[in-house]
């Protein structure tokens, strides 16, 4: 009870502080003083603001731990029988709590920004704080007006309505915080870019400074998306990890923009080119994050992941989003004329051009995902037709363009700044084409694989892979870049392998049945029924064996009582060679169960390659700080 109040009033005080900081920073900026030190009050109040949000967050967690059902959020999302680990996670596994997480990242990042930007001009810092506080104020208002995590419920219920059982999973516990550090973290890039634009502070020093933030945001966003996919794969029981579902797309879109920005910022740093474009990318990354939040929380799109739908929240976020976007557009057009532009062109064969090409493809992929996600909304409003846009659309558009993209990735990172005389494209590299062709030829021959794009993709994936491995022994570029690009080539290869060589088997079986599949025997050995404290559990024991190995898989079906749901938990045996995936479902025929087994080669390499990509980023970040 008391924590409920403390949590609520912390937010109210936080709101007042954000309004104060908003006006105070603007006031200080307009007043302008000679010394470059930030007024101490700014430091203090930002810290207090952060502290209040942390306090509020802790209070919400405490309400969950104590199963305080007088708190409406706890009531809807928790249950006394839930294990304590998941009670805590329940705090951010719902709409209101996750917005509190938004606020936490927003306030944390502005505070860190204030501490770490001492080398930057004061006016720039003040403006950054100003813009960030606009965002923070908006979120405080959004939270307190439409999505209060501390609403009272009276009379106090005895028991909660329980968290969705699918959300009781360790990966899902860390997925939102990590994702938000990236996703929401792009807010600081937005705010500081607007400030840099107004102050014409767009030189090498600023680029070096903002690069840190871009890296931090990018690393967390990449890892956050990875965790979401891992969770979907291990928990959702369908064996897939990416469905081009709106919520997934919404996290991917800022990633494309941020990756483009990551590359562009080094052009700005080294050559002082592309100032306007850098600002545009910074604005669009966070705008995409905000739009994503709108699309997912307003109920305008339906998806397997959606939070509780509420149009009033949708209207608030929509208006908030457009205020920010219009503000950014205005500022851009007004101040863009005044910045000292470098309008020299870059040479065709140069690193700058290569990065422009990277951006070109990133923006293209971004547009595909963006249009695919929002087009049904537009179509329905304009002429009432309802269509679905699913995986086939995205694959058909993205896959063919991956081919030239991979080719450019093979060439681009090696090019010199300013001008490259192409001496390095020597026979060695073309020789590497040969094993690539041989391998893709073998794949076609042995496995009858084909589709117009698969083979060139394989060939180029291998080519990029061989090239990036070979480049480890050369001085072309930084270690971090090599690792990330190597990771990317592995990513493409493992997705191809996994997609093409995966095999599946479905059948209705009863205990004792055996089936043959792919030279393996799948035996339904046993079924146990166990009553647990908040669900009934059916645990099956399967054995998948051939003359080389024998694997036991124990998938589970859970019948929950609060709310009444049935979930199916797959059992996955993961090795570095392949995953064996098995899931079963209850069907109407008594005694029979629908069994689905999948053989998925190189599954772990998909995760590993993304970790490798992020590792490159982490290395780059720590190197920069030297």
């Amino acid at each position: 009870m008391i924590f409920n109040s403390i949590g609520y009033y912390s937010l109210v005080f936080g709101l007042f502080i954000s309004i104060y900081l908003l006006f105070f920073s603007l006031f200080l900026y307009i007043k302008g003083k000679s010394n470059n030190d930030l007024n101490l009050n700014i430091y203090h109040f930002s810290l207090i603001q952060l502290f209040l949000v942390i306090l509020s967050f802790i209070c919400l967690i405490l309400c969950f731990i104590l199963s305080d059902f007088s708190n409406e959020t706890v009531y809807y999302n928790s249950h006394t029988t839930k294990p304590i680990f998941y009670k805590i996670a329940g705090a951010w596994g719902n709409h209101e709590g996750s917005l509190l997480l938004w606020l936490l990242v927003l306030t944390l990042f502005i505070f860190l920004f204030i501490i770490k930007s001492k080398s930057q001009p004061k006016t720039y810092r003040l403006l950054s704080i100003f813009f960030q506080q606009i965002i923070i104020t908006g979120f405080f208002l959004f939270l307190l007006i439409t999505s209060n995590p501390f609403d009272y419920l009276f009379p106090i219920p005895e028991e909660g309505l329980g968290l969705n059982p699918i959300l009781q999973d360790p990966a899902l516990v860390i997925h939102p915080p990590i994702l938000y550090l990236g996703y929401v973290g792009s807010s600081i890039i937005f705010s500081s870019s607007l400030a840099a634009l107004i102050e014409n502070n767009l030189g090498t020093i600023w680029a070096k400074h903002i690069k840190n933030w871009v890296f931090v945001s990018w690393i967390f966003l990449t890892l956050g998306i990875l965790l979401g996919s891992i969770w979907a794969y291990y928990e959702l029981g369908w064996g897939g990890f990416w469905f081009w579902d709106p919520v997934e797309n919404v996290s991917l879109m800022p990633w494309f923009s941020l990756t483009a920005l990551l590359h562009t910022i080094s052009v700005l740093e080294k050559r002082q080119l592309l100032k306007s474009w850098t600002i545009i990318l910074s604005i669009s990354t966070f705008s995409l994050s905000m739009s994503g939040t709108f699309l997912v929380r307003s109920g305008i799109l339906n998806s397997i992941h959606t939070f509780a739908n509420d149009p009033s929240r949708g209207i608030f976020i929509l208006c908030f989003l457009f205020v920010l976007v219009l503000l950014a557009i205005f500022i851009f057009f007004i101040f863009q004329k005044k910045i000292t532009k470098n309008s020299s062109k870059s040479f065709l064969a140069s690193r700058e051009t290569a990065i422009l090409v990277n951006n070109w493809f990133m923006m293209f992929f971004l547009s595909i995902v963006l249009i695919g996600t929002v087009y049904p909304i537009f179509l329905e409003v304009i002429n009432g037709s309802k269509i679905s846009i699913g995986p086939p659309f995205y694959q058909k558009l993205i896959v063919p363009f991956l081919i030239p993209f991979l080719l450019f990735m093979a060439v681009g990172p090696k090019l010199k700044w300013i001008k490259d005389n192409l001496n390095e494209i020597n026979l060695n590299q073309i020789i590497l084409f040969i094993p690539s062709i041989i391998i893709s030829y073998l794949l076609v021959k042995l496995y009858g694989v084909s589709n117009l794009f698969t083979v060139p993709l394989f060939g180029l994936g291998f080519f990029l892979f061989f090239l990036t491995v070979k480049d480890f022994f050369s001085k072309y570029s930084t270690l971090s870049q090599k690792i990330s690009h190597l990771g990317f080539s592995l990513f493409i290869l493992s997705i191809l392998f996994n997609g093409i060589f995966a095999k599946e088997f479905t059948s209705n079986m009863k205990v004792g049945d055996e089936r043959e599949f792919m030279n393996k025997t799948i035996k339904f050995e046993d079924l146990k029924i166990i009553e647990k404290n908040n669900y009934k559990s059916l645990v099956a024991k399967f054995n998948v064996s051939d003359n080389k190995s024998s694997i036991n898989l124990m998938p589970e079906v859970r019948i929950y009582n609060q709310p009444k749901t049935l979930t199916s938990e797959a059992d996955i045996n993961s090795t570095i060679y392949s995953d064996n995936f098995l899931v079963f479902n209850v069907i109407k025929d008594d005694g029979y169960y629908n069994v689905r087994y999948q053989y998925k080669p190189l599954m772990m390499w998909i995760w590993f390659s993304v970790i490798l990509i992020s590792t490159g980023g982490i290395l780059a970040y720590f190197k920069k700080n030297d």
Partner: protein
Amino acid sequence: MIKNIKFIIIILFSLFVFFIFLKGLEKSNNYLPEKTSKKIETNLSANKLYDQKKVSLGELIDNNNFSIINIWASWCLPCREEHVYLINLKKINNLNIIGINYKDDKSNAIRFLSDLGNPYSEVLIDPDGTKSIELGAIGVPETYLVNNKNKEIIKKYIGPLDDKKFQEILKIIKNENN
């Protein structure tokens, strides 16, 4: 000058997007397919529950002005709850009610009807659920009000019948009869 035009275009485009999203919010996000094919599938043929004879839906929708097609199953709890409305519809108007028994066990279905009463003039079986898909159904229970003369689906009810839907059916029938 060009910059100004670009600026205005971008602002206008943003406002356009804003209004589309605003409009989009008003619409329901959970799409339930309404009747897209207005005509009932008269060619659909299935076996009867009681005597295994094959019959086509068109043959059954012949007399009277209206028919009701109701998809049900003995294992479906909401079907149990809506059953009384069907009995009443039969009593009040002597409506031609055709049942489609969905993915059910024959003896369970027969027992269901003997326990709760049989409002159906005929019951067809759909053991694998494919007949219901041919009707355009999503699940069970589902009820269609059909105009016998032009073979069109007047109303499609997804989910069990309740007071409101029951009254609506009565009203439609009364209006047509007058």
